[in-house]
C-alpha cells in the first residue's frame, strides 16, 4: 500500500496542472471571499449591531469558486490516466484496483485538505481586514469561537469531500469532459435549479439532498433554525454522496476492463 501511495503521490505532484489547480483553489476562494465581504454594508440595517449578517459564512463565500478547482483536481487525477493511457502501466504495477483507487483517494484528499486549509484561513483573514471597514465587527471571525471553528473546519472538510466525490465520478465515467460536467452539474446546476423551482417544499427537499447546498450548511453560524439541514448533518449528506461515488467507482473499476 505504501508503494501505491508513493506512486500516486509522484504522479500527482509531477503533473503541472496539479499545482496550478491547488493554487487556484486557494487564490479563487480568497479572491471571491474578499469580493463578497467588500460589497456588504450596514446601510440596510438600523444599526451595525442589529445587522444579522452571518459574517463568517460571508467570509467563506469563495468556496463557490474554489470547489470548481478542487473538482477538476479530483477528476483529472483519474481521467487523466485514461486520457493518456497511463492507466495500463498503473494497473500492471498495482493489479489490485481497490488499492489503486484508495491510494489515489488518499493523495487527492490530502492535497485538497491542505489547499482548503490555506483557502479558509486566507478567507477568514481577508474578512478580518475588510469587514471592520464596512462597519462590521471582526470578532466573530476568530477561530476561538465555537461556531466559527465549526464553519472553518467544516469548509476544509467540504473541499476534501468534493475532491473524493469528483474522483469517484471520474472513475465511473473515465473521460474528463463527461466527469467534470457531471460534477459541475451536481455542484452548480442543482443549487441553480432551486432558484428556478417555485414550490417551497420542493426547494427544501433539493437543498437537503443536493451535495453543495447540504454540505455548505456547515458554514452557517447564525439562524441555524432556518437552515434546511443542520450543519454537521449537511456535511454528512455530502460525505454520503462522496462515499457513494467512490464505492460505485470502485465497483465499476474492479469489474470493468481498463
Amino acid at each position, binding site marked *: 500500500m505504501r508503494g501505491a501511495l508513493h506512486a500516486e503521490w509522484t504522479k500527482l505532484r509531477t503533473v503541472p*496542472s496539479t499545482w496550478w489547480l491547488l493554487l487556484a483553489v486557494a487564490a479563487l476562494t480568497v479572491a471571491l471571499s474578499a469580493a*463578497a465581504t467588500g*460589497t*456588504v*454594508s450596514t446601510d*440596510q*440595517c438600523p444599526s451595525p449591531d442589529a*445587522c*444579522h*449578517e*452571518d459574517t463568517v459564512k*460571508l467570509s467563506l*463565500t469563495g468556496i*463557490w*469558486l474554489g470547489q*470548481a*478547482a478542487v*473538482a*477538476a483536481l479530483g*477528476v*483529472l487525477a483519474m*481521467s487523466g490516466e485514461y*486520457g493518456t493511457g497511463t492507466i495500463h502501466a498503473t494497473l500492471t504495477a498495482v493489479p489490485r484496483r481497490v488499492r489503486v483507487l484508495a491510494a489515489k483517494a488518499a493523495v487527492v484528499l490530502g492535497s485538497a485538505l491542505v489547499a482548503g486549509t490555506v483557502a479558509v484561513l486566507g478567507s477568514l483573514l481577508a474578512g478580518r481586514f475588510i469587514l471592520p471597514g464596512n462597519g462590521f465587527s471582526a470578532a466573530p471571525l476568530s477561530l476561538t469561537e465555537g461556531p466559527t471553528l465549526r464553519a472553518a473546519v467544516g469548509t476544509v472538510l467540504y473541499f476534501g469531500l468534493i475532491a473524493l466525490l469528483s474522483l469517484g465520478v471520474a472513475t465511473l465515467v473515465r473521460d*474528463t*469532459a*463527461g466527469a*467534470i*460536467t457531471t460534477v*459541475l*452539474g451536481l455542484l*452548480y*446546476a442543482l*443549487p*441553480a*435549479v432551486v*432558484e*428556478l*423551482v*417555485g*414550490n417551497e417544499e*420542493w426547494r427544501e427537499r433539493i437543498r437537503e439532498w443536493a451535495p453543495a447546498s447540504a454540505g455548505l450548511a456547515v458554514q452557517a453560524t447564525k439562524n441555524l433554525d432556518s437552515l434546511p439541514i443542520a450543519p454537521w448533518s449537511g456535511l454528512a449528506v455530502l460525505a454520503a454522496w462522496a462515499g457513494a461515488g467512490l464505492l460505485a467507482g470502485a465497483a465499476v473499476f474492479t469489474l470493468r476492463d481498463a
Partner: protein
Amino acid sequence: MTTPTVTPYRSPLPPARDGFPQLLRAEWIKLRTVRRWSLALLATVLVTVAVSVLSAFSGGSDVKGDRPPPPVGPAGAIVSDSFPFVHQKLTGDGSITARVSLLGGREGRPAEAWAKAGVVIKESTKPGSSYAAAMVTPGHGVRLQSDFTRDTAGGAVSRDRPHWLRLTRSGDEFTAYESADGSTWTKVGTTRLAGLPDTAQAGLFVATPGETMVQRQFGSTSVGGRPARVTAAFDRVTVDGGGGTWRQDVVGAVVGANGDPKGTPDSSTEKSGTWTLTGSGDVAPHTPEVDITQQSLSGAQIGLIPLVALSVLFITAEYRRGMILTTLTASPRRGRVLAAKAVVLAGVAFVAGLVAALLSFLVSEPELRDRMPNPLFYPDMALTDGPVLRAVVGTALLLAAVAVLALAVGALLRNTAAAVTLVVVVLVLPLVLLSGLPIGAAHWVMRLTPLAGFAVQRTLPEYEHVDTVCLPEEGCYPQGPWSGISMLCAWALVLLGLAMWRLRRRDA
C-alpha cells in the same frame, strides 16, 4: 546502362476544392459521427425542457385570488384603470381647463412620484376605454398621457403652487397646455386617439401607483406593497363646448350590493367651485409581477451545461487525439478551420435551442399562468406575439452564442477540464450568488458578463412612466433584451477572434 524512368506517384482521386463549404462539411461530419456529442445535444434539449417543466409544475399557489377580471385597454393589453371621475359630456371639439393643487398622499405624507392629478377626456366611464389626459405629477412634472402606454413630458411643477392644465380636442387630435398663472400657456404635446366617438366625457381625475417596499439584504429579499393614496384640489374648472351637469363616478370600482363602491377610498366632493378628489387606483399599463414567458424558458440556464461540454470538446478532442494535425494539414488556413467549427456548432446549437425553447414554452407557459393566484392578470401569450417570438428565438441564439464562446475558450486553453469548468462556472454560478450581492453590484455583473445574454428572455414591456422594482432574483435584467444578447455575442466573437489569432501564432 539504362536509367529506369520513375513515374512520380499521382493519387488516382480527382482533385477537390478546399473552399469554405468543404471545410464546413468536414466539421459537420466530425460533429455528427461522434455519438457522445449527439447525446450531449439531446441532453441539452432534454435538460432545458425538464427544468422548465419542473419549475412550471412545482410552482404556483393553492390560494386562488378572487379579484375580478382586469380591464383591457384599447390596444388589447391588460391595464389598471380605476380613479374617481368628475365629468360631463363633451360633444365634438372643445376643451377642459382647471387649476390643480396636489395635496399629498396618505396621512399627510407626500404622494408617490408617479401620482397623477389632472384633466382627462375619456371615451366613457368604462374601465379600459380610450382616453387622453393632461396631468401634474409630484416627481415627474407635467405629462400628457393617452391610452395607458403613451406618455409625453412637459415642464416641471412646483409642489406648493397650483398649476393650470388645459386639454383641447380637435377631431382625433388632443393637445395639452400648461400654465403657471392661467394666462400664458405652453404647449405640452399632441396625441391622436383614432376612433374616439363624437361624444366623450371630459373631467377631472386623480390616480396613483401603489406603494412598494423592498427589503433586500444578504440574500433575503422581501417585497411588500399596498395601495397608495393621493388627494388633489381643482378650481376654476371650465369646459368649453361642454354641456350639462357634473357627474361623479368612480371608474373601475367594485360595486357592492347597494350600488355603492365597495371598499375603495376613491371619492370626490365639491365646495364652492372647488373639487377635491381622492384616489387610490392607477391609470397605467398593468405590469405583472412575474414574467411567465421568461420563467417558462429558464431551463436553458441549466441545459447549456452539456452544450458547453460538447463545444469545448469539439476543439480540445482534436488536440487530445492528435486529429488537429490532420485537420490542419488538410486545411492549412487555420483561422478558417476555427471559423468553420464555430459556424457548424452555432448552427447545431441554434436548432437544438429552438427545439428546446419551443417545447419549453408550449408545455410550461400555460401551466405557469394557470398556477398564478390571479391568472387573468397575466397576459395570455401566444407564440406569434412579438416579445414571445423574440424570447424563443433569442434563447436559441443565446445557446448558439454560448456554444461559440465555449469553443473559443476551449481553443484558447486547449484543456478540456479547465475550459468546461471556466465556462460553466461563469454562466451558472451567478444564478446562485446574485441574490446575495448588493443590487448595484448584481446589475453590473448582469450587464457586463456573458450572463447578460439571458436578458433576451424577458418579455415584459418597460414603460418610462411606470416605476418597477428590478430585482436580479426575480429575473429582471437592467438592460433591454437586445443589448443583453449583444453583450453575450460580443464576448463570443471577441474570444473567437482571440482564439483564431492564437491558433495561427502557436504550434498545434
